[in-house]
């Protein structure tokens, strides 16, 4: 009898406890049930896993999740018009660093802090687990505007086989007087790039080349294509594009000019189509075995250079921090549309998505996915799957001033600067002249935007 009653008691407790939890689940389901969360943004490789995961998570919450994929500059046009006309269509916006300034400027994003305070579940969200620099970059004037799941940081990738080849090492030593190593300074980076730039018919590692070979490769198409590559050099020269204290552009400071001079001096070592390439093309070129080094975002290496399905040289690439300087940090993530009618539901969905366990699973599933969460970046399992994790963490732990300002004028400023850098590359004007002109035009731009008088 006693045994029976014990069993019955245990069963009853189990049922009760189970009922409470199930009820909670049910409660959550009914609270947001029937809502459709709509997301708008570009189909980038860190956003696709989010969409797939959120679809499942939303279903668990009784909601639907629907994505409209549009490239970021087109999405920007859409958001601006929708916002200005009071449209409440969207709930979540895929937020890239490049357009974040404009989104915040027009009020397209709603600060997340009130939502976190009111309905946030600290354990799920794990704010402490985010890298500090990431959260800082995702905030503007003290308010958090988006939750980041992609922090692109620039790394130096190089072909191990070339650097280890005895033939090349001997030739390098003879020519430059020091040992061939993955470069620690930009001076040495120049030497290595010069050394490895060969024409068809010359030899590389003792074999005759069937096609031209390049020391390094960059994507220098006008606009953000070039800017993403150039920013790393700005960081190396400790230069910025403007001074936040005075809001004056700083495009003709000696540091900035120095960065432009060096960047344009690399042109002889780049493939001739650099001036019209995107970083995807530039990476594919290097991965196909036509370049010795590449300074690129870390996820590109994982996604292209080191992926055996996409690269002819997958196992030949190694990664290290770029030559001495600040870390280049470009943050992307998801924010909540200011006119959304389902802000709470959207936030809850994002919160579930950013749970460190979910993030870790995704990082183990996708080669190019590595969120700025400490527990993920430090996990040995992750490090085995992601060779770039260690260097990335090192890079992101350095102090970084983002050269991706959160200004609405940011894309126009980039357009001006990259236009003049291209002129320098074509040999039409000197770096000093280019920087002076860029400064002049950007000052006018800032005046029109009302940043300075």
């Amino acid at each position, binding site marked *: 009898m006693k045994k029976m009653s014990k069993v019955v008691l245990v069963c009853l407790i189990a049922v009760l406890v189970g009922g409470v939890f199930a009820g909670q689940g049910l409660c959550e389901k009914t609270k947001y049930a029937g809502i459709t969360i709509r997301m708008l943004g570009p189909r980038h490789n860190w956003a696709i896993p989010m969409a797939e995961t959120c679809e499942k998570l939303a279903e668990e919450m009784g909601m639907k999740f629907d994505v409209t994929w549009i490239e970021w500059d087109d999405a920007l046009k859409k958001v601006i018009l929708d916002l200005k006309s009071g449209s409440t269509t969207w709930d979540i916006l895929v937020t890239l660093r490049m357009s974040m300034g404009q989104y915040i400027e027009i009020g397209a994003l709603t600060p997340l802090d009130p939502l976190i305070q009111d309905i946030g579940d600290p354990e799920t969200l794990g704010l402490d687990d985010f890298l500090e620099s990431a959260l800082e970059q995702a905030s503007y004037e003290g308010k958090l505007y988006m939750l980041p799941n992609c922090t692109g940081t620039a790394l130096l990738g190089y072909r191990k086989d070339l650097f280890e080849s005895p033939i090349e090492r001997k030739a390098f030593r003879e020519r430059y007087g020091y040992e061939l190593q993955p470069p620690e300074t930009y001076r040495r980076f120049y030497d290595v790039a010069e050394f490895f730039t060969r024409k068809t018919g010359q030899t590389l590692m003792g074999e005759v080349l069937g096609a*031209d070979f390049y020391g390094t490769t960059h994507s220098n198409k006008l606009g953000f294509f070039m800017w993403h590559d150039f920013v790393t050099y700005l960081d190396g020269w400790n230069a910025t594009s403007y001074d936040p204290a005075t809001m004056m552009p700083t495009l003709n400071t000696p540091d900035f000019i120095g960065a432009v001079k060096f960047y344009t001096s690399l042109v002889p070592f780049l493939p*001739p189509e650099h001036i*019209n390439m995107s970083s995807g093309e530039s990476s594919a*070129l290097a991965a196909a075995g036509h370049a010795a080094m590449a300074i690129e975002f870390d996820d590109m290496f994982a996604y292209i250079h080191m992926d055996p399905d996409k690269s002819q040289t997958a196992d030949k690439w190694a990664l290290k921090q770029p030559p001495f300087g600040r870390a280049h940090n470009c943050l992307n993530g998801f924010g909540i549309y200011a006119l959304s009618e389902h802000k709470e539901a959207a936030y809850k969905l994002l919160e579930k998505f950013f749970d460190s366990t979910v993030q870790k699973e995704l990082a183990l599933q996708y080669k190019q996915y590595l969120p700025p969460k400490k527990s993920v970046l430090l996990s040995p399992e992750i490090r085995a799957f992601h060779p770039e994790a260690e260097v990335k963490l090192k890079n992101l732990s350095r102090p970084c001033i983002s050269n991706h300002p959160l200004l*609405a004028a940011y*894309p126009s400023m980039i*357009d001006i600067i990259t236009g003049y850098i291209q002129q320098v590359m074509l040999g039409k004007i000197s770096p000093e002249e280019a920087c002076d002109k860029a400064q002049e035009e950007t000052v006018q731009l800032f005046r029109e935007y009302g940043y300075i008088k």
Partner: protein
Amino acid sequence: MDVTQKKLNAFVFLVPCIVYVLILRIVPLIYTVYLSFTSFNYLRQQKPVFVGFEQYRLLMQNLSFLQSLKLTFMFTGIAVGIELLLGLALAVLFDRPIRLKGVLVGIMLIPMILAPAVVGTIWHILYKPSIGPLNYFLGLLGIPQPQWINVVSTALLSIIIADVWEWTPFMFLILLSGLQVIPLQLREAAKIDGAGVFKIFRHITLPLLVGVILVVVVLRSMDAFKVFDLVYILTRGGPGTATEVVSIHLYKAAFLSFRMGRAASMVVVLLVVISLMYSAYLKEIEL
């Protein structure tokens, strides 16, 4: 038919067309003209601020804009010229009984049917100096391989070639249908009379086709002047400013810096330029 009946008739034919165009095209244009006299940063301001002729003054001083006008004229002239010659030749070529004519014409029209962005992408790939097939074939034939869109000297030419490929079918289509409308009897009669192919073409076909040719040239050149997709995808206006056409400037003003007043003034200037270009032709049309 009495006068009021005739007037009513005219109304029925004319009114839907005019009203539609007025509401959907002219009214927004008036708004644009108004904006051209204002300074209106769409991101930072709520309302446009009246500034008189300031935008126009700045525009006339903007050397790169004036330079882009010149470049666009050059592009239009060359591209449309080639398209006309090729289109005409093709139309004449196809204006005869051929087996599977419908299918062949359909195939010829494919470049025009593809989305402009797809056309841009495929030419981007074709123009790749070492990876692309164009230079590969040129190499096989022993011809020097140009850098296409990557150097200033051939960038504009590359865009012209891509444009010709994309839009010659348009010329071809309209000219072919123009040829179909010309009564066959006239040509048959001339043939019976012993006239050679070229003579028939010069003295019968061409004069009757002149109207259609003029129309299609004016139309196509107006569109070529506004070329955007090809340039944006292939070069973004580069290298440097080698392919910076007017529409790139407009795009940057409207969607990059959101300076609506500046964009509006560019539109008005474009409008004036183009209507001046064709004012002579428009006067000549018998209406």
